[in-house]
């Protein structure tokens, strides 16, 4: 066992209202620069829909992620090392900017500078790539709220697959349709195919917190990572010629703050926490033969932070104490492993993604309520989850490589929670059979409810700071070596300065943590011996 810590995220899709606040704040914080106009480290897609960049899930075309070769070993879908180097002079699988969308601005100057005339001046859209006037035809959320779905919806690769497998149609007729929002950031995978694709070795996974980053000084602009990432969450900065990607807001996270997207999320649907995993088991899990078993395989990679053996091994591996403590309090671990309501996005890419999603129950509840049934009655809900096959199978294409079992289990838990909590809130006697039907106790259901519905800031974001884990070492390194003149009777001889204990020639006003308590005790003690 080789335990490693990973900062991970869970998003509760039931709560996403598609407001794009996360995208906008992220954009303002990170990609509000020339060369990155078309880049959204965080984007929110309406599903069914093509996503951003268009049809990024079509891996027959973009060749992202891993696949198994004939011997059952992992291999990059876009080709191995030799093929990559031989084809380094161009990358046929690289999306062009226009596959994302052509970024534009408006000719605002015309509004003030236009000569006097009979027509009102207008600000025409101008391409930010070539500076010429352009027709706006697509953008990162062009098909927001199913806009144009009758025309574009069929192009969703997951709709295509659902139709292949379920033989029935996902309908885009107005009364029969369904939709939900899918916010996406970099998955910070355990088995990142972008890192594996980088010929320069500029991309890396941080060993302390698992955040996947691009070393801007070592990136040489070969663009293989863009192809390698099946989620298309590595972007090419067309001005600097370097790859850039979501950084999990590491400067904030290191200081114990949540990522910008989490912090500003209006629906408070994001959870951040530490997950412990066994690095030795990653490759094995990623090479699971049947792609439908990948979800379970990834769960097996995670370690139980309460297990004494795990704690011992983690300590030996150098994971700091407060990280272990955070792992035990981690909402992500609870939602992923304890309650098993969160699911990974596209496990079939074999990258073991670490941003997980709680599938949306709302379309089911709404559909029930519209047909005149009680949308929160457990019996109705359980039945409805199965009869509304299309959403279930569509969700399964997204979250479990097409296996509806885990999606149904997750939705049933959410349905049981709604039903149980309704009884509690209405003062009815809760039926213990409802939680039991999904393998939970009433207590567990209420705990899950607390986490999903009313968890406060500190419960949603359990982030150990980088510095505290290292505090002792940092403190030691920050303390100055003893002054060279500070020998007995020397000119730098210690002692009180002219204005008391803290005055004089002390070089750093730094008090080691241990001494802080000693100092306080000395200042507050009545008796000298107590000190």
């Amino acid at each position: 066992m080789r335990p490693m810590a990973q900062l991970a995220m869970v998003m509760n899709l039931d709560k996403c209202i598609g407001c794009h606040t996360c995208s906008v704040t992220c954009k303002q914080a990170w990609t509000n620069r020339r060369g990155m106009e078309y880049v959204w480290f965080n984007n929110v897609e309406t599903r069914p829909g093509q996503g951003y960049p268009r049809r990024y899930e079509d891996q027959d075309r973009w060749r992202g992620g891993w696949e198994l070769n004939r011997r059952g070993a992992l291999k990059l879908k876009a080709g191995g090392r030799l093929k990559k180097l031989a084809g380094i002079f161009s990358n046929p699988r690289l999306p062009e900017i226009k596959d994302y969308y052509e970024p534009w601005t408006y000719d605002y100057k015309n509004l003030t500078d236009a000569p006097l005339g009979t027509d009102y001046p207008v600000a025409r859209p101008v391409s930010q790539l070539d500076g010429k006037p352009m027709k706006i035809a697509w953008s990162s959320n062009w098909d927001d709220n199913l806009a144009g779905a009758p025309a574009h919806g069929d192009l969703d690769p997951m709709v295509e697959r659902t139709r292949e497998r379920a033989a029935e149609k996902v309908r885009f007729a107005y009364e029969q349709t369904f939709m939900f929002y899918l916010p996406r950031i970099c998955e910070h995978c355990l088995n990142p195919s972008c890192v594996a694709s980088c010929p320069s070795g500029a991309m890396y996974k941080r060993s302390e917190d698992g955040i996947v980053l691009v070393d801007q000084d070592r990136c040489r602009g070969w663009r293989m990572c863009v192809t390698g990432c099946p989620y298309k969450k590595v972007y090419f900065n067309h001005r600097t010629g370097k790859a850039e990607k979501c950084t999990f807001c590491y400067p904030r996270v290191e200081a114990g703050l949540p990522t910008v997207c989490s912090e500003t999320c209006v629906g408070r649907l994001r959870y951040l926490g530490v997950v412990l995993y066994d690095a030795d088991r990653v490759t094995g899990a990623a090479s699971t033969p049947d792609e439908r078993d990948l979800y379970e395989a990834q769960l097996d990679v995670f370690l139980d932070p309460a297990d004494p053996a795990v704690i011992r091994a983690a300590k030996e591996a150098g994971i700091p104490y407060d990280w272990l403590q955070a792992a035990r309090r981690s909402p992500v671990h609870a939602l992923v492993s304890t309650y098993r309501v969160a699911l990974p996005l596209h496990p079939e890419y074999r990258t073991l993604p670490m941003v997980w999603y709680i599938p949306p129950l709302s379309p089911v509840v709404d559909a029930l309520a519209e047909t005149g049934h009680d949308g929160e009655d457990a019996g109705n809900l359980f039945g409805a989850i199965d009869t509304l096959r299309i959403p279930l199978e569509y969700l399964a294409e997204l979250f479990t490589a097409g296996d509806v079992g885990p999606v149904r289990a997750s939705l049933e838990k959410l349905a049981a929670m709604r039903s149980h909590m309704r009884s509690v809130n209405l003062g009815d006697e809760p039926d213990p059979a409802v939680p039991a039907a999904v393998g939970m106790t009433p207590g567990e259901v209420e705990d899950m409810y607390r986490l999903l519905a009313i968890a406060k800031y500190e419960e949603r974001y359990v982030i150990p700071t980088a510095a505290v884990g290292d505090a002792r070492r940092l403190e030691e390194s920050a303390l100055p070596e003893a002054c060279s003149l500070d020998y007995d009777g020397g000119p730098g001889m210690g002692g009180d300065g002219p204005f008391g204990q803290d005055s004089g020639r002390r070089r750093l006003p730094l008090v080691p943590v241990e001494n802080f308590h000693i100092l306080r005790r000395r200042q507050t003690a009545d008796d000298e011996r107590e000190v």
Partner: protein
Amino acid sequence: MTVFLWGVLPYAAFALLVAGLVWRHRYDRFGWTTRSSQVYESKLLNIASPVFHYGILFVLVGHLVGLFVPASWTGALGVSEYTYHLFSLYGGTAAGVLAVAGIGMLIYRRRTKAPVLRATTANDKAMYVLLLGAIVLGMAAKLSDTSGDGYDYRGTIAPWARSLFILRPQTGLMEGVPVLYQVHAVAGMVLIALVPYTRLVHMFSAPVQYLVRPYVVYRSRDPRQLGPRPDRRGWERAGS
């Protein structure tokens, strides 16, 4: 003049190359990139770029063989002068045609695709002129004399090139060389000198280590990056 061109310029070019690479590595690693324009336009590039790069790599191999394999070695292998000439003529011309066709397409693409043209700097333009000039001059020099055994550069240019490495440049060897070859050689040396100062620098980051490194790279946080950063040079705070 002879001494300057064939005794000084080669060393100056080499010095500029090395100094430039060191400077770039120390102070401008962020700018050390291919500056790919593929995200603007992919279709033409997917054909033109491999054609040019493979062509120019073969050209490079050809130059290495021509300049650094003495005639006596090939003679010892039983390769006659005429066979060698044919091999060098056809092989070299094929590689040269690939390179010229590739760079032709690339320049056409750069000129006609508006976003690509907009991302082209003055430095790029100068580099293109020099690169294209060197390639075309080389082709012209080679094709200007194809009769019989052709111009035997292995009796003059190659020994001169080798003499550079033992620090005893035999500049006299270059005096009788046809002008086209001379101009080509000078253009080549200027190009070598300019490599680190243009986007051509990406040739020195050929990622061969990719073949042997583990797929997933782990790196730990730089401990110096925790906590406040040290003051930048020239901005150190006066005592507190």
